[in-house]
Each structure stands twice: as structure tokens, then as C-alpha cells.
């Protein structure tokens, strides 16, 4: 037959084998992409809290997917049911896969029972970001806070997650703290489980 066209093959994305997760791209490619994301969102909002919320929403989507991917690939589909379990999952596994290292520290809040903090000296996403003075306390770590929120929500631990700069003595750049405040029901369930 003359001129037989190529039949289009629509491979179902679920049929393709899951990659091992070892592939890498350059940091600058990610940094450029992230900067465009932030710049685009800046044009869509009027104030800083809106901008942080949009970045958080973007991160939330990433977090939900990261949870599914890592649960399947790294943990053999085991679900975390305890608070400390999910926190150490976020602090070690998620951080290691996304940023190449475990988070610097995981602390329990002293003032409130439901607060936990993950700290990092310099978040990967903030490495090439400089915040102008008129934007005050804006932190692009809101994206990472969104990722953590996505992971926690997906795992059944609803929480409010925010990113803050914490000045450190003897260091020029402040370190970033991701503050996780769990919902009431999580603490009630945790105390019930013993």
C-alpha cells in the first residue's frame, strides 16, 4: 500500500515501568524553572501572602505525588500511621530523594504540643533567590512547605505548614524552618494509639 501513515501509539502512562529515580538534571535547570514559577505567580497576585499561598499550592501538588511515588518505590507500600513515623519519613526519605540529603534537624516545639519544626541551613529552592527588602518576610520556602503539607495530608495527617526565616548568630544568611502544626484530630488519634 502506498503512503501508509504511522499509527499513533498511545502508551498508557501506568503501563510504563517506574524509573529507579536516579536520573538527574542540573541544579541550574531547576533554579531557572523555579524562578519562572515565582515570577509568573508574582504577576498573578497583589500581595505577599497570596504569593506564598500560590507557591504552597504548587508545592502541595508535588507533595501529594511524591508521597505516592516514594511509598510505592521506597517503602514497599507500607503506610505510616504514627506521628513520629511520618515526620521521620518526611525528614529523611522525602528530603533525601528531593534534595539529596536529609534535613538538618527535626525538633518538637516547646510551646505547643502540636508543633514540630524541620530546619535547614539553606533550602535548595532558596539558593539562588534574593528577596527584596520591600517584600518583607516572604520566603520561597513556601513551596517546600507546600510539599510537606501535600505529603502529610496525603498520609492522613492534616496540618498547617509554613516556612520561616530564623536568623542564626554567626551566620550571614538566616536558616529556614518549616513549621508544622498538626490538626486536633491528629493529636487525638495519636494519644488514642498510645
Amino acid at each position, binding site marked *: 500500500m502506498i503512503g501508509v501513515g*504511522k499509527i*499513533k*501509539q*498511545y502508551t*498508557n*502512562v501506568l503501563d510504563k515501568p517506574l*524509573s529507579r*529515580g536516579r*536520573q*538527574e*538534571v*542540573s*541544579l*541550574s*535547570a*531547576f533554579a*531557572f*524553572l*523555579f524562578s*519562572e*514559577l515565582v*515570577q*509568573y*505567580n508574582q504577576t*498573578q497576585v497583589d500581595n505577599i501572602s497570596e504569593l506564598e499561598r*500560590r507557591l504552597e*499550592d*504548587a*508545592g502541595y*501538588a*508535588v507533595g501529594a*505525588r*511524591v508521597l505516592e*511515588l516514594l511509598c510505592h518505590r521506597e517503602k514497599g507500600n507500607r503506610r505510616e500511621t504514627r506521628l513520629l513515623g511520618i515526620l521521620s519519613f518526611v525528614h529523611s526519605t522525602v528530603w533525601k*530523594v*528531593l*534534595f*539529596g540529603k536529609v534535613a538538618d534537624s527535626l525538633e518538637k516545639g516547646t510551646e505547643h504540643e502540636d508543633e514540630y519544626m524541620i530546619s535547614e541551613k539553606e533550602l*535548595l529552592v532558596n539558593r539562588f533567590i534574593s528577596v527584596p527588602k520591600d517584600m518583607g518576610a516572604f520566603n520561597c520556602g513556601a513551596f517546600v512547605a507546600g510539599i510537606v503539607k501535600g505529603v502529610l495530608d496525603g498520609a492522613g495527617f492534616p496540618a498547617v505548614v509554613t516556612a520561616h526565616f530564623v536568623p542564626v548568630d554567626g551566620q550571614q544568611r538566616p536558616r529556614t524552618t518549616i513549621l508544622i502544626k498538626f490538626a486536633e484530630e491528629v493529636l487525638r488519634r495519636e494519644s488514642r494509639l498510645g
Partner: protein
Amino acid sequence: MAPLAPKTGDAVFASVDRVNAELFTLTYGAMVRQLLTDLEEVDEVNKQLDQMGYNIGVRLVDEFLAKSNVSRCVDFKETADVIAKVGFKMFLGVTASITSWDAEGTSFSLVLEDNPLVDFVELPDTCQGLHYCNILSGVLRGALEMVSMKTEVTWVRDMLHGDDAYELRVKLLKQVPEEYPYKDDE
């Protein structure tokens, strides 16, 4: 000091800092989703992605030239080779191949078998017109414009639309000679 020899794509990629490709893929996906929610029209999203790619390309080419030490390309064919072997490798960790040169040597096809932007992606029926990787066409256009080449970049094949590879057609429109911004007399 003797001029540095140009590095191969692999060597440059090994020397830059790298991040997990999945973070990159998922962030890109989140960005495309945001654009779709805000703009709703697939054509608008395509245009916006191209514009964002253009902004990235304009800055990316500086980093590319600084890190890879490539010498000035003699002709467009060499430019194409350098983009495919060094450029794509350096930033995305994948090598592209160059095919289908036209008779005058002003237009070529860049073929990507492996594309880190599209892992885990499936286009729904409502977005069939979307060029998901349109940011790449913008990046190429922006980068080449900064080195005095006005180009037009279009998609020929797209795996998300059922083809077997990603193919970009790059057409050189004109070479814009560099303009000296100041008059000689002043």
C-alpha cells in the same frame, strides 16, 4: 593561560551541581497545572510556556557559554551539534540527536528520545492541543536570540500525542549582527 578546551557534554554535566530529576519533573507539572487553571485556554498556555521558556533561555545561554567553554560556532550546523550534545546534556542530562537538515542548511530537527519533563505525564482529552514541553521551544529561541540568531522553533512530534519521540524543528530566520550600543564618535 592557554585557552580552555571545550568540554564534552558529559564532562560539564558531571561538573555542575545536580538535583533529582523527579523534583524537576514534578515542579514543571505543578507549573503547567497552575497555568491551565489560570488561563484555561490551551493556546494561551502554550504561548505562556513559550514566553517563560524564552525568559529562561535568555539567561541560560550565559551559563551555558561560561561553563562549557565552547568556541564560537563556525556555522549553523555546528551550533545545532553543540546544542544537542552539550547544551541538552548539561542542563537536562539527556542527549538529543540532530536529523533532517534542509537543503540550505538553515533548518534542522532536534530529536529527543528521553525527556525528563514528561515523566508520569498523560494528557487528558480536554488538553489534547497542549504542547506540554513548549518551554523547551522557548528556551531554544531565547538562547539562540542572545547569540544573534533569530529562529523559529516548532513541534513536529510529541510523545504525549502518541508519537514515538519528541521532535523540534528549528529554523534559522536570520543572523542579526551584534550592534555596538554606543556611537564611535561620542
